């Protein structure tokens, strides 16, 4: 188990390889469809959000507002990442993102972006909403809540020992590509 703490250095990212299990500590920012499209179209990050050395999490969490105005995260599983494929590589490069958390993996453009800029794709366990919500120790803030609505907003989360697996690394390797090729060959011999 490798511990990753934000902000992450390029060196730490380049040391990771496909199949490594990591635990993430520090601050991560959620972002899904609306945020990716907005940033890709040239939108600015709101003041207070710095993605340099940071992590984007493809997630629309369930948040409950507490009596004192703070937020409590009750479910925080990953959403399918491939929808962000048209935008992800440029966003990684432009904002200096070092990690993208999601599920299902991403395509060749993102893989190339990871290699070029020094970033990794971190696969969280799909459906594990309760376990992952428990790793969120504090909700530090929310941005674009009015503009995009709760699931699509940028939530700033403090996490502790958030588990994920490196399935696309900064050396051009993808576990998804590997497993697909091997399983396709295995199937051919069983038809």
């Amino acid at each position, binding site marked *: 188990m490798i511990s990753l703490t934000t902000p992450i250095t390029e060196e730490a990212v380049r040391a990771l390889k496909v199949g490594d*299990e990591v635990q993430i500590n520090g601050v991560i920012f959620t972002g899904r469809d609306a945020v990716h499209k907005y940033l890709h179209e040239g939108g600015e990050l709101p003041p207070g959000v710095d993605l340099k050395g940071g992590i984007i999490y493809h997630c629309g969490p369930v948040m409950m507002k507490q009596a004192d105005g703070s937020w409590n995260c009750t479910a925080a599983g990953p959403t*399918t990442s491939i929808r962000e494929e048209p935008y992800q590589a440029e966003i990684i490069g432009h904002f200096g993102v070092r990690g993208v958390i999601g599920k299902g993996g991403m395509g060749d453009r993102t893989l190339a972006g990871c290699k070029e800029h020094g970033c990794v794709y971190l696969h969280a366990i799909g459906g594990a909403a309760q376990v992952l919500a428990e790793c969120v120790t504090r909700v530090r803030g929310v941005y674009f809540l009015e503009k995009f609505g709760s699931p699509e907003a940028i939530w700033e989360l403090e996490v502790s020992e958030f588990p994920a*697996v490196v399935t696309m690394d900064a050396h051009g390797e993808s*576990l998804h590509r590997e*497993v697909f090729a091997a399983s396709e060959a*295995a*199937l051919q011999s069983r038809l």
Partner: protein
Amino acid sequence: MSALLESLIELIRRASAELPDDVNAALVRSLEQEKKGTIAESALKIIERNIELAKRKSQPICQDTGSVIFYVDCPVGFDQIECEATAREAVKEATRKGFLRQNSVDSITGKNDGTNLGPGAPTVHFHQHRESTIEIRLILKGGGCENVGAQYSLPAESLHANRDLDGCRRVILDAVLQAQGRGCGPGILGVCIGGDRATGYEFSKQQFLRKLDDRNPDPKLDALEQDILKTANELGIGPMGFGGKTTLLGVKICAANRVPASFFVSISYMCWAYRRQGVVLTAGQTIGSWLY
């Protein structure tokens, strides 16, 4: 609050927060089978922990609480209109209590009014039987796994799939290959051979009402189920598509007649968060017993 309304809210709560015993048992078995120290094993361990946590906190196992689908078996003379109205009320109340996420979107306006009610939401299927009992089953069908369902029209030339059982086997296994990494495996397949485009998918979903450890009474379909399960688990796709031994937890297949011109194979995919529950109601419409 009517007894039926209370029973249905409890049915929704339990379906959302607790997996049925047969599914839990299958997940425990697959965890034992995965090689120690692999990422497949870690993934299944997190899944197990998640199941335990959801049950203890009485909270949704997965945040996508899915499409809400009721199946009601009822005696002749049962008031279906009243039952459907109560089911809608129960969904609204269960959403308010947080057993269901605000999960239903108007397809034209994009609006989510937070009630989980709308055209086709929830779906309630009625079926009359000659017994005097009322049985209500519920499936919460997640979106990620619904997206990887597939309908093939045979012959499918690129897959060398003809209009026979071998052709069916080829397309079903192709669906398993294509679904990998998406849809939160290990998964369960519900398949219908034949029917039209609508009934094919409908019957394929009904297969999810079967228990994982039951056997198909039709020997040909039983053999196909066992074969697909075994073959899929030899492909090395594994939980989440990480590689590993557990690709599928179960395969359930039915057949429906078709017209000579069509030959559809419809495949629904269910994720590991296989939320299915059911109740037999008492005469007073309280919960008499649980079906799973």
